[in-house]
């Protein structure tokens, strides 16, 4: 999952798209009463039906105009029930919503400005049960509060432990610094998809040597990591006390800035669910491969922390998922447990085995468990929003 340039999204306020799932034209619409076509041009919004029975409705929206368009299904009170954005000229997108009986308004918004072209739409009673939006809203609100609190707590602990870490490092107490390193980073890794969403801070805090552009100065965690564990480096020149202070102070200052920014964030359920998916992607790309902590080999600490954060996200939205897709909830719970069992087998004291102490077979089994969890996890956001 690519996040850095999307940081602004985290600043948006509460979930508008509680009952939305927008997909592309490729998936087969569930035919029956629920399939409706919409053609949006610069001045017309042609909807193939004015009513449909309650349940799953699929609007297949084609842009016949010259500007980008959007399509909304609004409640009678103007609440957004579902929306599909960014439909380019000649393109088709789908909007799938679960709609209870009642009065609605369809809206095409060519050019994405103004009130749009609206028409009344009626959902008639049927024998399909649709959860009321108010009970959903409560679950959503609770999930958002819960996750926001978790992120803030991790950020605060990251700042506190980073302070201790840099003190030990500056004082030349390398043994203490090495112990604190992985422990402090745990709090970064638990909220990594949020922490790295600030495109200006992430490279200063978490860049690996291979990530650098020609001429870019290397700072942050991994710069200090190399200085504390230079064993794999060739002809490495240790940093002086003065240099240590520069990198340490810089790390702490940037972490403080990060903590301040995180305090201003709010999270929507789709961001929470996507964040869980993103954390497992981080595991798959950098932790299970042993690339993240190249010098210290403490990849399993990060691995566990990513999994922790992903699990908190999933647990937060689980009450919603239990209503929408209980089978997926069950699968996710079982797959988390299987992965955790493999991780637990590598525990040593308060930490883990170093990555280079794992056998190829152990690494492969961990990777297999990551894949087994990540596949169903990739369906979480759509399920929660359905």
């Amino acid at each position, binding site marked *: *999952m*690519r996040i850095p*340039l999307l940081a*602004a*999204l985290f600043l948006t306020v509460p979930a508008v798209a509680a009952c939305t799932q*927008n*997909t*592309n*034209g*490729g998936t087969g619409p569930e035919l029956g009463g629920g399939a409706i076509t919409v053609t949006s041009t610069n001045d017309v919004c042609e909807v193939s039906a004015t009513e449909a029975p309650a349940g799953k409705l699929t609007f297949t929206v084609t*842009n016949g105009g*010259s*500007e*980008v368009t*959007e399509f909304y299904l609004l409640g009678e009170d103007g609440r957004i029930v579902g929306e599909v*954005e*960014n439909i*380019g*000229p*000649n*393109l088709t997108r789908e909007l799938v919503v679960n709609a209870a009986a009642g009065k609605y308004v369809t809206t095409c918004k060519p*050019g*994405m400005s103004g009130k749009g072209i609206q028409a009344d739409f009626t959902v008639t009673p049927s024998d399909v049960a649709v959860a009321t939006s108010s009970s959903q809203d409560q679950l959503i609100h609770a999930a958002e509060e819960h996750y926001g609190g978790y992120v803030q707590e991790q950020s605060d602990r990251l700042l506190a432990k980073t302070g201790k870490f840099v003190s030990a490092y500056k004082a030349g107490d390398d043994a203490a610094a090495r112990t604190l390193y992985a422990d402090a980073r745990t709090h970064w890794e638990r909220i990594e998809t949020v922490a790295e969403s600030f495109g200006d801070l992430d490279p200063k805090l978490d860049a690996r040597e*291979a*990530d*650098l*552009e*020609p001429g870019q100065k290397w700072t942050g965690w991994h710069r200090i990591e190399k200085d504390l564990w230079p064993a794999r480096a060739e002809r490495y020149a240790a940093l002086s006390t003065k240099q240590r202070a520069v990198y340490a102070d810089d790390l702490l200052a940037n972490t403080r800035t990060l903590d301040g920014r995180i305090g201003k964030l709010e999270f929507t359920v789709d961001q929470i669910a996507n964040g869980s*998916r993103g954390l497992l*992607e981080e595991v*798959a*790309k950098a932790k*299970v*491969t042993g*690339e993240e902590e190249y010098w210290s080999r403490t990849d399993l600490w990060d691995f566990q922390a990513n999994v922790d954060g992903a699990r908190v996200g999933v647990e937060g939205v689980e009450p919603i998922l239990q209503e929408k897709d209980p089978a997926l909830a069950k699968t996710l719970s079982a797959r988390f447990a299987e992965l955790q069992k493999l991780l637990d087998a590598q525990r040593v004291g308060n930490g883990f085995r170093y990555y280079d102490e794992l056998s*190829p077979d152990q*690494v*492969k089994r961990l*990777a*297999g468990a990551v*894949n087994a969890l*990540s*596949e169903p*996890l*990739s369906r979480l*956001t*759509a399920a929660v929003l359905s």
Partner: protein
Amino acid sequence: MLGRATEDAAASPAAALTYPFRGDHQAGIVTPAQERLHFAAFDVTTKSRGRLVALLKAWTDAAERMTRGLSAGEIGPVEGAVNLPPDDTGEAIGLPAGGLTITFGFGPGLFRDAHGKDRFGLADRQPEALRELPHFPGDNLDPARSGGDLCVQACAEDPQVAVHAIRNLARIGFGTVAVRWSQLGFGRTSTTSTDQSTPRNLFGFKDGTANLKAQETAALDSHVWVGTGDDARAGWLAGGSYLVARRINMTIEVWDRQPLGDQEGFIGRTKGTGAPLSGGDEFTEPDFHLPGADGPVISRDSHVSAVHPAHNDGVRMLRRGYNFVDGTDALGGLNAGLFFLAYLRDPRTHFIPVQLRMARIDALMEYLKVTGSALFAVPPGVRPGEYVGQSLLG
């Protein structure tokens, strides 16, 4: 003699194709991209310029023969003495030429060794732009898949024909050169002719829609062929080109778990038709200014926006890459991706800035890891009576 081309094969028209080996430019650049690739990079092991020249002459003869559908050696795979190994390895018996092209290039190491020492009296003719490529963010290069003093690109419609070509050329070279690395490509990812349909890469998207095509002769002169006045010390390269080879691994499993809408957002095109997200069909020019819900509808960090000539000083390259799958990695994931090959007039203007921009902003970088990299100067075409590289070594 049991010539390959004389034997019947249930050949498709493509399999029967032959492209002339000799011409103003080497074949295998603007030639309509064939389906299969075997690419090899070599280290020169001899210190003798004479032996190097002798090899290039032998390679020229063998390559010309094989591109005509003949055996690598003059005798043939089964026509020789029974007490000698055949001068052709034989796996192409009965196969037509298959549109085989063989293209040669020279790496920086041919001119100077790692210490900058002149190896064959060629240092003063080393092109200014033929240097090791800089480190790019996202590079995780395996030295055993990077660099090389010489390269040979063999493309054909039949994989066995391409492998046969590299195998026999490597054999001819033993004692003078050693294979440093080689790469198989099983499916083209670019079109180099307007007659070809656009193939898909392993992300499942059409690739190379806006590629430079053979028919765009003026653009080829501007962006692909080295001009006579481009580099005073490397006049020998006029009519040639530079070849950038990059082995780009894709994190396939992670990519496959991205929602379709996100995948299309990363690329900036629809997965089905390949139309830009700003609308139209595959060949409609993307509109980077068309507003969407949150910035342009084609995101600034989409691949198409990152690498489009409009955002890169107008530079274009002729891409000729291939999908590869080299089995699975140690974690059970596909060891797969795109073997990127691009021909261009000058890497300093036509590749390095584009790659840096891509590394900086392209959303796709999240799913890519470059594991091999090399740069070669590709000499001009081989004219009648010449050997490949004669303009440099003759």
